[in-house]
């Protein structure tokens, strides 16, 4: 056990990055991520972390330099938010396709316009098709632990994919919680630095980033798909061992609530904590309700979602991002619907869009969502709203 210290979410992340003994940090300032990199700069400046910091001139270059450093064999780290994440978009595909085990923190923030520095999941969801393993934390301890888990998963020879770990901007990045710190020795024994990937070694020269024509491109993609699938097994093994070593157990999904629920809210990030608190304090233990937290977003843990949602009458999905014009404008709702349909689970679903641009998702809002679910749980699916319910917006 490490020592327990009060830390903001961003500091908690920075301490984990330090414990992972990263070699290269390449990042560009953006709110609300900035204080992670500030803290890391402090560690390097004080000799507490032996790493090269590349003060790049954009997020595009931040990730490009991370790709270069990772290809050269370094353990690398970067972090960003919002516009910075979508500026990296192009290179995110390349990082995953080159199979480089980069770890990046997303301090989740809304996307412009209007420009908004506060929290939602627009940036996280916007890059969810880039081939990265993606996780989102519910609290600062988890954000800290996710960094160590991320290196272990990313560098596993059966995976070799970049991993993004996210935490909610401000609600977590700038909020102080007690953190049980993972010390360097323990971090490196759990996620040892191993050269598991091809690197730019002059003694064994390789060409990385070749042109893949129609004869070969498809095979590269097929292998990448397998690696992503494999990352799920490695995730499960890693969280099991993490629980043994550090005493904290995480799941790809985590359920809280009634043992035999009729209504369940599915959510991600800090809002999960709000829903838990609502269920404990407001709704009462006897109600047949629960919340399913999605921690691992890529690969999407379908099997566990089926396990928890089978037999539930109605599932409400809380999305903190919006895709106008989509058949399911809530991206998480879209994943849940696809999962249920694919596995023949006939639970009805309702899409809630809430908390965009930093608007808090309050107990009042959560109350409205549960009321809607209770009201509609026995109606036939054909009578359910076909559009998302926007909770907490002025219409």
């Amino acid at each position, binding site marked *: 056990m490490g020592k327990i210290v009060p830390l903001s979410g961003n500091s908690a992340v920075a301490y984990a990055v330090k414990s992972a003994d990263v*070699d*290269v940090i*390449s990042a560009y300032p953006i709110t609300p991520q900035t204080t992670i990199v500030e803290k890391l700069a402090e560690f390097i400046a004080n000799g507490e972390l*032996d*790493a*090269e910091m*590349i*003060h*790049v*001139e*954009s997020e*595009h*270059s931040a990730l*490009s*330099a*991370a*790709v*270069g*450093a*990772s*290809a*050269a*064999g*370094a353990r*690398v780290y970067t972090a960003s938010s919002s516009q910075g994440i979508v500026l990296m978009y*192009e*290179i995110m595909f*390349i990082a995953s396709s*080159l199979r480089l085990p980069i770890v990046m923190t997303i301090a989740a923030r809304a996307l412009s316009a209007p420009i908004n520095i506060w929290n939602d999941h627009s940036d996280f969801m916007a890059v969810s098709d880039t081939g990265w393993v993606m996780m989102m934390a519910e609290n600062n301890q988890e954000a800290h632990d996710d960094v160590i888990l991320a290196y272990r998963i990313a560098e596993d020879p059966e995976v070799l994919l970049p991993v993004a770990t996210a935490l909610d901007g401000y609600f977590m990045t700038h909020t102080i919680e007690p953190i049980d710190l993972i010390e360097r020795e323990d971090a490196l024994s759990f996620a040892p630095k191993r050269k598991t990937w091809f690197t*730019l*070694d*002059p003694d064994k*020269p*390789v*060409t*990385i*980033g*070749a*042109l*893949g*024509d129609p004869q*070969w491109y498809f095979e590269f993609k097929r292998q990448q798909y397998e690696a992503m699938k494999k990352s799920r097994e490695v995730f499960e093994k890693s969280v099991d061992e993490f629980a043994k070593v550090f005493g904290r157990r995480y799941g790809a999904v985590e359920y809280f609530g009634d043992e035999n629920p009729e209504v369940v809210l599915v959510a991600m990030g800090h809002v999960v904590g709000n829903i838990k608190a609502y269920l404990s304090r407001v709704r009462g233990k006897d109600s047949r309700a629960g919340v399913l937290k999605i921690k691992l977003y890529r690969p999407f843990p379908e099997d566990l979602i089926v396990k928890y949602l089978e037999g539930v009458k109605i599932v409400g999905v809380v999305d903190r991002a919006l895709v106008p014009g989509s058949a399911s404008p809530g991206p998480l709702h879209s994943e849940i619907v696809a999962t249920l349909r694919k596995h023949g689970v006939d639970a009805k679903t309702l899409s809630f869009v809430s908390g965009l641009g930093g608007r808090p998702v309050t107990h009042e809002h959560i109350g409205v969502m549960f009321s809607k679910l209770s009201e509609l749980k026995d109606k036939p699916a054909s009578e359910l709203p076909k559009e998302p319910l926007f909770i907490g917006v002025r219409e």
Partner: protein
Amino acid sequence: MSRALTIRDLPREERFAPGHRMCQGCGAAILMRHITKALPKDTIIVQATGCVEVTTTLYPETSWMNPWLHIAFENAAAGASGVEAAIKVLKKKGQLPPGKEVRVVAIGGDGGTFDIGIQALSGMLERGHDILYIVYDNEAYMNTGIQRSGATPFGAWTTTTPVGKVWHGEWRRKKDIIGIALAHRVPYVATVNPAYLPDLYAKVSKAMSIKGPKLIHAFSPCVPGWRYEPALTITIAKMAVQTGMWINYEIENGVLNVTTPVPKRKPVREYLKLQGRFRHLTDEEINTIQKFVDEQVAYINKLAGKEVIGPVEA
């Protein structure tokens, strides 16, 4: 003082394998073959998307005997920054043998350097990475089919500056990439030309011996883009120097040295008339180009402190 290098002094060993898909007579192919001869073997090359990249690494084949990385179009300088930082720290932390001198070179075309890659290049130069950046300049987006770039010279036909009733080829002047590099106070910049290979070899070797960010601007004739017969690549490259359209020089710590003095210049018309991309030019436009070249020659002579490039012969 040692005698000047000749072509016979260049290493016989080939470090750039044949069998690539570059065009017959491609200037960039000649450049790459001789740049790799001049690079220390333990050099990592980071390449921008472009002609050279797509034609030399068609999986599962590669022309590169050095470790080689391609990420995207606009970020060779950023990718190389990451490689260089990694080598530095891995060496310091004992994960690479301390005696091993691994060097880093970034290579991009004019589009990937003058235009879309200028930001990453500026960052790399400003941060002081120990990297040699080489831009092979064929004066347009040749890989996508001859679209104008910030390096396209005044008057040149391209597919996006066509010659029509209203337009008459490119109407703006070429960007000054050496000036941009110098504004970052880099220790070494140079220009090279495939018709002067010993000069190229000497400059790449010298650049690799200097710590810090360096830039080499390479003249890169393009058969399909400039509209000439493949056999004329070297003739055109030489004529560029003889007319003052291209000047071979280097600036080391602020001191300029013209490495190919030209006592008497030929008129620019001699260079322009060899290429289909200039065939539409009027006498007035050719006079304008001549004036631009005269200005550049005067500027270089002023920096050199003497007349290293002479007047146009009558």
